[in-house]
């Protein structure tokens, strides 16, 4: 089964992870810009980070025939430094002609503060002026429900935003319908303790269906698992869900969302692997 991990921070993973992911069928990843674990000191720190995301990671991934895409922004945690955030937003267009960039992200809220909301809106302004897709981080734990509603308020308040070009990430049981009912794409993150388990993600799929939804590992420098998407594939198989439904969630949906990027270049999509073809048609 081929799959795409549409949200993984490979900068904080080792090369062996790329190799193991490729062995499990991963053929593309997308890497949103995020917090480094400390606040970066200057706009030049972000410039170097964006070079890493657009130059080095695509090369490292290509060694294992994995296509690497990225998203650019200053994350919500650093938005409290409004002047630095504005400098970064002004610098992002320098990288918007890089072929692996899919759009602006992961922007969003962290503690739902006024400064975070201001910088979120300024990222949306940039994305609207440059016709970019948007990838949204929703807050963690107790802040998620409130923050998701605030994010959706801001997106709906902006007439330029087409929800079909926005992906709301880290949805769980209490936020998934907010995203889908608003016409947005959404993603579930399979992450220990603080987000979804593969079993709960499959429960959510059983409740809301497979349209406009995808899954990711959000693998990063925290305790997380870059092999989480294959675990979801196993859980879906275990419950008897069809190969077509699995492929839609782990492969076709992220591809369909990414393809809306105005920089998207087609590549040869591999045929479904042998185990995805019904037995009676196999030679």
């Amino acid at each position: 089964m081929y799959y795409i991990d549409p949200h993984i921070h490979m900068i904080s993973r080792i090369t062996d992870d790329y190799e193991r992911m490729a062995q499990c069928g991963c053929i593309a990843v997308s890497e949103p810009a995020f917090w480094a674990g400390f606040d970066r000191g200057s706009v030049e720190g972000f410039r170097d980070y964006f070079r890493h995301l657009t130059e080095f990671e695509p090369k490292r991934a290509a060694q294992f025939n994995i296509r690497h895409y990225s998203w650019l922004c200053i994350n919500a945690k650093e938005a409290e430094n409004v002047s630095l955030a504005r400098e970064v937003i002004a610098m992002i267009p320098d990288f918007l002609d890089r072929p692996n960039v899919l759009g602006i992200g992961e922007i969003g809220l962290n503690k739902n503060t006024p400064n975070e909301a201001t910088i979120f809106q300024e990222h949306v302004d940039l994305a609207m002026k440059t016709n970019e897709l948007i990838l949204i981080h929703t807050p963690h734990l107790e802040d998620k429900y409130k923050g998701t509603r605030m994010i959706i308020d801001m997106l709906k308040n902006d007439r330029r935003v087409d929800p079909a070009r926005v992906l709301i990430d880290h949805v769980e049981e209490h936020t998934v319908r907010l995203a889908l009912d608003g016409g947005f794409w959404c993603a579930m993150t399979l992450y220990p303790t603080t987000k979804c388990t593969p079993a709960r993600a499959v429960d959510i799929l059983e409740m809301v269906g497979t349209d406009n939804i995808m899954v990711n590992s959000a693998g990063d420098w925290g305790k997380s698992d870059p092999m989480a998407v294959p675990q979801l594939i196993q859980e879906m198989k275990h419950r008897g869900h069809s190969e077509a439904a699995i492929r839609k969630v782990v492969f076709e949906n992220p591809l369909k969302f990414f393809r809306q990027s105005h920089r998207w270049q087609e590549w040869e999509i591999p045929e479904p692997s042998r185990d995805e073809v019904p037995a009676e048609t196999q030679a």
Partner: protein
Amino acid sequence: MTPLAAEQALDRYFLEARAKLLDIAAILDRIGRGANASAVENDPRLVRIREAIAVLGDQSGGRAERIQRIFSLEYEPGWRMPEPK
């Protein structure tokens, strides 16, 4: 997407549910055995855990979503939104 038949789901997830309930019971015992247990008795986190446990015993469904909401801050309508530019 058709979910598993109830009997199959029970067969498959019974031991996992049992193990997770034991984990929760043991965590609550661990807190209770610690020094100054009475001082945390009304800690808002423990209060929420008790509310969540009450949801488990309720047969009306949507338990995961309801427990998520117990652990969530309330949304405040009419908050001051920045304006698009």
